[in-house]
């Protein structure tokens, strides 16, 4: 764990996917390291959940995504249109899972590294504009997250066309773009049960209340400033 802390201090800003070129030049994906220890987000999110979430769930999405990409590659090479179409749901699910979780790890940071500190400057202002106040945003996201039926994500997004920040939800592992091509994710909260069950059991509202203590607003502000420039 200490080694991981020393060696894995790479920034995951932007696209931090590590790519390994496969045998035929097909780019496959591998699990990005977390920028903090598994236990660093306690007590908001337990170390057990972080480890399972990262090493098992995210890894599974990546493994299955790579598999689906290989099958897609083969189907495209053969010109098998129906096989290509059939693979789309597996790609959307597993690829979406990989994309979403990669963003999620960046959205969290330990309290001693600034986790939980509300945003200032342009993002803070934009939030006040759209929602009235920072607290109103939290209330809205918690309500949307708690009300989401089944599995999914709740997002704070920048709508590049409308030039304002909005709250959106997506089902299962659908990436945010499925809700609008001009949406850029700033913050995503995983409300799949695996993200909180061991610690909060069925009380999803408690998980949502506590996760704000470790939300990395610095990263969200960076993305906001870059995308709204």
């Amino acid at each position, binding site marked *: 764990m200490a080694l991981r802390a020393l060696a894995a201090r790479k920034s995951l800003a932007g696209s931090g996917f590590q790519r390994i070129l496969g045998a035929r030049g097909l780019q496959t994906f591998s699990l990005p390291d977390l920028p903090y220890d598994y236990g660093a987000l306690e007590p908001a999110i337990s170390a057990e959940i972080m480890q399972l979430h990262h090493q098992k769930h995210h890894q599974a999405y990546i493994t299955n995504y790579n598999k689906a990409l290989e099958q897609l590659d083969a189907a495209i090479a053969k010109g098998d249109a129906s096989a290509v179409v059939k693979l789309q749901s597996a790609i959307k699910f597993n690829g979406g899972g990989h994309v979403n979780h990669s963003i999620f790890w960046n959205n969290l940071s330990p309290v001693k590294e600034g986790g939980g500190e509300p945003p200032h400057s342009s993002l803070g202002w934009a939030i006040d504009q759209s929602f009235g106040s920072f607290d109103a945003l939290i209330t809205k996201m918690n309500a949307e997250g708690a009300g989401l039926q089944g599995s999914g994500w709740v997002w704070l997004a920048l709508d590049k066309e409308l030039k304002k920040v909005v709250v959106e939800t997506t089902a299962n592992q659908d990436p945010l773009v499925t809700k609008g091509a001009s949406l850029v994710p700033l913050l995503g909260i995983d409300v799949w*049960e695996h993200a909180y069950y061991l610690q909060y059991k069925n009380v999803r509202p408690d998980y949502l209340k506590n996760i704000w203590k470790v939300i990395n607003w610095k990263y969200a502000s960076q993305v906001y400033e870059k995308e709204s420039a």
Partner: protein
Amino acid sequence: MLSSLTRAMLSSSSPPPSSHLLLTHSSHCLKTPNLSHRQCKQQKRWTHGSQRASRVVAYYGLKEPPYKLDALEPYMSRRTLEVHWGGHHRNYLEGLNKQLEKSDILYGYTFDELVKATYNNGNPLPEFNNAAQVWNHDFFWESMQPGGGDMPKLGVLEQIEKDFGSYTSFREKFIEAALTLFGSGWVWLVLKREERQLKIVRTSNAICPLVWDDIPIICLDMWEHAYYLDYKNERGKYVDTFMNHLVSWNAAMVRMARAEAFVNLGEPNIPVA
């Protein structure tokens, strides 16, 4: 119906009735055509305290699983039953009762009918999620038993062999369906009325095959809350354990027997002389 509407309009403080308003209210009340004889929501608004006392609504009670909460150990822990039944299932039920309190249009349905009515042919009403999840979970507890698993027998086995080739083939298909389900959902063995065949069906979130008029025989909850405390992310182990130690083929037999009253599964065996 029209006179009570007019009465409601006149006694409320809303603007004078115009043909536009009347249309809106009646279209709201006639949302489900076969309920036109029931009281519509508008009428409730002007009822006073005394009227409220005579209003009848339906409430449902939380059905217990047909075994003690620790009876499925070590395959499904007591803790899981406590949180799954006592937490999730109970919340769906209490949510449903709260919703039904506000609406008496949904009064008078049997539970099966309530699920189908709230599904509203694919445009689910807000009550659907709660109603269907209560139904699904009731069905799920009854689809398991202590000392379950093993193999189906008699008629159920015959039908499975007829429709899947063999029990092993059915089992493989069922497990595969469970493991390739994306997101939250359920896996079902249903008897299809038209085709008169057993089929494996997957549904998302709260959807229940009742809404397609199929007859469910067995179900498996693949929402993460069903297995996370016991198996964490190891879905495969959960599904295997369900097939090996939990599934109640006795319940399946009872349901199949009842289904045969509605679906003609085979030609009667008429002895010759």
